[in-house]
């Protein structure tokens, strides 16, 4: 699906990471592999340290802290928020949805509309498309897009394939009105026949979590895993990304009538350094304009990696300047999503740390 939305923009971004830092070097002994092998892998993949919140700090806490920061810094006012779009693969409660819980935590106006999207790694771009569509189809002036993921403290510490890259984070984007000439060009592709490449088999309606599904078993390569935990076919995911992201970027460039060389930055989802280096080489763009440093500093926080990437790498530049950028994301589904826009001249763009002290007050 391809779509162009005009007259809207991202006017502010706040990314929130937990202050709690876990080091790969300290985790090596947990993996059922020789430490030298894990260390070598870590060097290639960019496993260095990641941010994992304590069990008491949830995705709503991270998001509320970021929005309270925007209030405190005078970026937005509570009464200005017409709509809250919350995109995540994690839920604070089974019922009600994350957006309603966050609305309550922030004591927002009862006129603020709340929408929840269940989304994986493409969640920021899907949420952006939803937020922009709502703006375009209405007279609203301010939609808050929230992506947030937490719960990595419960991830399997013995699974070297998934744990070292796990990370918690939230991202908040303020979507505002813009000149009609401004467009955001979107493209989305889904290949759900490949959904087993990245899947948590148990815990939903198809296979409810039981004592049996919680039992650990050793996979072919020696990783400990239960059916309640994320399974990743690394080869399948790698090939999906390499086959589909270059096509996605070509399609959006055509839609936006933009040459690849006119794109100043490729702001991608952050699975690991190796994959992003190979992807940059494959689409023939300098590695310097496709940042690959988020996993090594913060971990892969699913839909939150794009705002973390933007705020960590470009916060200073995006206040005074504006650049043609291409966002791209890929992941469970399997699916890919992309967007081309002018990003910059922003009111606010920062990465902040949640202190993990039980308070959401900035």
């Amino acid at each position, binding site marked *: 699906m391809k779509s162009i939305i005009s007259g809207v923009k991202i006017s502010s971004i706040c990314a929130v990471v937990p202050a709690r830092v876990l080091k790969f070097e300290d985790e090596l002994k947990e993996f059922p592999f020789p430490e030298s092998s894990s260390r070598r892998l870590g060097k290639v993949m960019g496993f260095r340290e990641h941010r994992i919140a304590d069990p008491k700090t949830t995705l709503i806490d991270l998001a509320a802290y970021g929005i309270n920061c925007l209030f405190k810094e005078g970026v937005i006012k509570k009464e200005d928020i017409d709509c809250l779009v919350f995109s995540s693969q994690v839920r604070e409660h089974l019922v009600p949805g994350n957006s309603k819980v966050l609305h309550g935590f922030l004591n927002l106006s009862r006129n603020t509309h709340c929408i929840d999207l269940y989304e994986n790694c493409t969640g920021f771009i899907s949420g952006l498309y939803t937020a922009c569509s709502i703006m375009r189809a209405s007279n609203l002036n301010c939609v808050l897009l929230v992506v947030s993921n937490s719960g990595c403290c419960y991830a399997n510490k013995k699974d070297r394939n998934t744990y070292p890259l796990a990370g918690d984070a939230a991202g908040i984007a303020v979507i505002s009105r813009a000149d009609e000439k401004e467009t955001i060009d979107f493209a989305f592709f889904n290949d759900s026949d490949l959904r087993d490449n990245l899947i948590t088999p148990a815990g939903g309606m198809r296979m409810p979590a039981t004592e049996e599904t919680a039992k650990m078993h050793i996979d072919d390569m020696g990783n400990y895993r239960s059916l309640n935990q994320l399974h990743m076919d690394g080869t399948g995911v790698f090939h999906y990304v390499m086959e589909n992201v270059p096509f996605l970027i070509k399609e959006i460039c055509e839609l936006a009538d933009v040459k690849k060389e006119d794109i100043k930055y490729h702001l991608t989802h952050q699975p690991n350094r*190796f994959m992003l280096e*190979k*992807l940059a080489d494959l689409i023939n763009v300098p590695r310097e304009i496709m940042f690959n440093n988020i996993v090594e500093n913060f971990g892969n926080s699913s839909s939150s990696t794009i705002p973390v990437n933007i705020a960590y790498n470009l916060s200073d530049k995006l206040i005074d300047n504006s650049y043609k950028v291409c966002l791209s994301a890929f992941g469970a589904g399997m699916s890919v999503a992309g967007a081309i826009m002018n990003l910059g001249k922003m009111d606010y763009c920062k990465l902040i740390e949640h202190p993990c002290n039980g308070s959401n007050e900035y």
Partner: protein
Amino acid sequence: MEDKIISILHDMHPETDFSKSYTNLVSDAILDSFDVVQIISELESSFSISISALDILPENFDSVESICNLVKKYIK
């Protein structure tokens, strides 16, 4: 080149005798995707090459011979 490749593989899996003629290292799960990533990194630094993502296919890592052929493609 073959000796170097066997040495790289042996460093990762000392329990396996790679001098034997394995032909299904990946499909028989002797090597997993993360092993392949490490092999690529070692090959790139040892032979000063850069392997394209399009060549990162299981069949190119299924045997010492196929890995040799892959490296030769970039050295030429």
